[in-house]
């Protein structure tokens, strides 16, 4: 998979390149709008990550010009602004997704993967992590032979964690997916739910599957995974 990143902040660009390379992407980068547009129109990228505020040619303009030539390539906009109007404007101008700085790298990866998956919906009915099994059709969860009873929210939380198994999910991401942005305040709702979920999933088990990654968030995974 070949990804282009157009971002004038060298350091931001650098850690994204590094992170995506570690995830086995081939990454090109451009530091201003014009060279970004040149690269975008010269090569066939699977995905373009485009910053909104760029020198020479603004991100909005680059977006328009790319869309004039190529309707298909997924474009993820990065921005330090988050006014709803901007968001709507850029989605209408042809951006596929929108990420506000500062973001968790895990979120960037999740969105990149979601955009690349687009079209081919890979949604297995059964999610498995070690001996933990979640059946999306019957909405049942089992750990080994034991059936686990979960509330609706706990189920939604576990499903989200298991869909992204092996990946650290930030509290903000969890709140956005399982609750909604309104809960992203001072509340420690995620921690409380994760603790309850952990009590049902991991208590009495030798192998703990739900792990806390300090400063980053939570992760579900077999230890062998990471």
């Amino acid at each position: 998979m070949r990804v282009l990143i157009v971002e004038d902040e060298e350091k931001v660009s650098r850690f994204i390149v590094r992170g995506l390379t570690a995830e086995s992407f081939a990454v090109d980068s451009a530091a201003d709008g014009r060279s970004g547009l040149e690269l975008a129109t010269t090569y066939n990228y699977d995905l373009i990550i485009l910053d909104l505020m760029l020198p020479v040619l603004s991100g909005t303009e680059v977006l328009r010009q790319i869309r004039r030539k190529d309707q298909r390539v997924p474009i993820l906009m990065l921005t330090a602004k988050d006014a709803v109007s901007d968001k709507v404007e850029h989605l209408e101008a042809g951006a596929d997704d929108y990420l506000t700085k500062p973001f968790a790298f895990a979120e960037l990866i999740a969105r990149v993967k979601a955009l690349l998956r687009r079209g081919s919906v890979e949604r297995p009915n059964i999610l498995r992590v070690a001996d933990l099994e979640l059946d999306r059709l019957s909405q049942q969860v089992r750990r080994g032979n034991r059936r686990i009873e979960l509330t609706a929210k706990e189920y939604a939380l576990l499903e989200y964690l298991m869909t992204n198994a092996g990946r650290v999910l930030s509290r903000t991401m969890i709140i956005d997916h399982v609750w909604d942005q309104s809960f992203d305040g001072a509340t420690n709702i995620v921690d409380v739910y994760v603790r309850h979920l952990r009590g049902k999933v991991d208590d009495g088990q030798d192998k703990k599957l739900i792990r806390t990654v300090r400063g980053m968030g939570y992760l579900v995974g077999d230890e062998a995974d990471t």
Partner: protein
Amino acid sequence: MNTRSIRFRLTVWYAGLVAGLLVLFGAAVYIGLGEYLRSTLTESLTKEAQQIGETLLVNVNLSGETYVTDEIKEHFAPEINGLFIRVTRADGSTLYESGASRDGTFDPRNIKSRGEKAGTSRVEGLPNGTKLMISAVPFTSRDGETFVIEAGAPLKQSESVLHGLLLTFAVGLPLVIAVAIAGGYFLMTRALAPVGAITRTAEQITSRNLSERLPEAATGDELEALSIALNRMIARIEHSFRHINRFTADASHELRTPLTVLRGELEGLSRRTDIPDDARETIESALEESERLAKIVESLLAISRLDAGEALMNRELFDLAELTDDTVDQMRLLAEDKQIKLSCVAENAARVEGDSGRLKQVIVNLVDNAIKYTGEGGNVEIRVAATDGSARLEVSDSGIGIPPESLSHVFERFYRVDKARSRKLGGAGLGLSIVKSICKAHGGTIKVESNDGKGTRFTVDLPLANDDGADSRRSNVKEER
């Protein structure tokens, strides 16, 4: 009526001045007219006395005294005309004295002879109360005999004129003063009307509509100058307010890029497996702080947006009771975790128009706070009700309460009642500021009451939406879909 108002005070001053001037003027007229009447009376009496002397007494030695008295009686008929005439010889004896007037106003026998005061006029008061003006004129006949001729008339006539004048003043003055008060009040009301308009508009200008201006009446007077000056002041406030808001927005914005770098680099580092545990610990701690910093930046930006009136893009009509019920349901576990009894009474619909996501944030923040500051086994109660024109959300708890001296500060940015405690709970002191900004942006209010140690109650009032409009809009949306 406000007795301290400019209108009242100026009217009083004005009326007082008019009254004072009128009294002065009236007194001058009264005294002047009295003087004038007296002097004309004196003058005509003197003339009469001189006439008697020049026509009758001049040849008294030839014509004889009887002739003189007869002539006086015939020409002047003093008794009929109410005149007093007396002619006194040099030795003080009376040559002639008129009789009592027919109308009985005076009797000359009561008037003492004062021959020595020849050439003067005097007012003689009689025992019956009548006042006579008497002029005495000295006269020397051709053969050198001297006489004093006195002519007098009652002052009654001129006195009745003065009396009439006084009466006119007594009736007219209060009338004129009343007109002056009414006129003055009316004029002041008219002159001060722009002040009322300026006051009303000024009252309505808040941080959210600073672009509004006061009415500037192009009257060219002081009030125009005042309104222009006030408008310039509002413009300066608007400018600095915008500046502050833009500064907050710019600062938050500029902080995001370094935060992104910080976080990205730290995350990258923590993914590596070859780092020692203590270094990992440091990285994780730094990540936590960068996360917190990011939250503060977000919150500040949200507040400055809300205060600038930009952030309510998603206006819709919804039921606050329903929203509250759903939101509280999602937070039950937080309460259960501390064995707190969480009850929500939101039975009747309370439709409001606004950004439901933002208002949900209000509910989340208030309920979250209530749970945080309530000890195990306590109560948190949420109520939603529609009461006369407003949708009311009440969140009360049986928690630690807020000390009275902190109560007025809880909505301030970065204010924390108990710094150590709230930091441990992860707050930056911005939650309630956001809540307040959201309420204000919706045209609502929030207030807090607290019994230190016994609990706190937050009350949010939002304007109720017009339900007819709500239904029609809803159906529109459905049709569109």
